[in-house]
């Protein structure tokens, strides 16, 4: 089986990461912003797999294991925060949440 060149994998990873950044900066729905963060985490995972494949090492795979567990924990806590925010304000629009703004 032919190995996929590392450069192509890294280009794909950087594209996904930039789309995630755009989603975080442009969208107003809190859940969509959260999904964009998950997308950025996935892009980083992809580059980890690319380097692990190219270095023929398992340490990258171990890192991905831990990143995915942290992402799952983050999703659980973040979604419960979003849920309680929705209960108090009846909206998910981030422009309405100015509690911490001066």
């Amino acid at each position, binding site marked *: 089986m032919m190995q996929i060149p590392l450069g192509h994998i*890294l280009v794909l990873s950087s594209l996904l*990461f930039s789309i995630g950044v755009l989603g975080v*900066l442009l*969208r107003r729905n809190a859940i969509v912003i959260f999904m964009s963060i998950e*997308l950025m985490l996935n892009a980083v995972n992809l580059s980890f797999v690319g380097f692990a494949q190219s270095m023929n090492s398992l340490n990258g*795979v*171990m890192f991905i294991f831990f990143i*995915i567990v942290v992402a799952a924990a983050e999703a659980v806590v973040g979604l419960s925060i979003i849920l309680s925010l929705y209960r108090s304000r009846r909206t*998910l629009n981030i422009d309405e949440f100015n509690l911490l703004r001066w």
Partner: protein
Amino acid sequence: MILFYLFALLSVLGALGVLFLRNPIHGAMSLVGSFFSLAAVYVMMQAEFVAVIQVLVYAGAIMVLFLFVLMLLSLRDEGPSFIRWSVGKVLAVVIAFGIWAQLALVLGQHDPEALVPQIVSSGEEVDSIKLIGQLLFTEYLLPFEAISLLLLVAVIGAVVIAKRRYPGSSS
């Protein structure tokens, strides 16, 4: 090789769907598609363990959680889904393109294969699940225990944050 480009295109399209689709539920489904095609890419990179975890945890658990929350909230139409500030829009595009251009520039100037020290393969299968398990319970034992503690804390924290406080009950 053609399959790699096909699935790479699919994952980028799914990501663009998250960015542009107006309905958050459609965005979540498109993100599931993106995660599935990333799992296919992992299979092509001989990282089967990561692909299985990707499908089980990301496409399975996390996205189902997102969809549950989206359906619990049953969102009505909230008007324009992008930010209103037009200078901010331009700034966001410039920042995102800047990040991408920086990454592409670094990758274009150096051959990325040259950045990686070439380790001679010991003849073993790189991504065998048996090896991963052995590594997890020897070299990475402390991080493993720490991450299990983190999961416990996250579960308790989620229950405490999302618990509904009925009026009249002593909180």
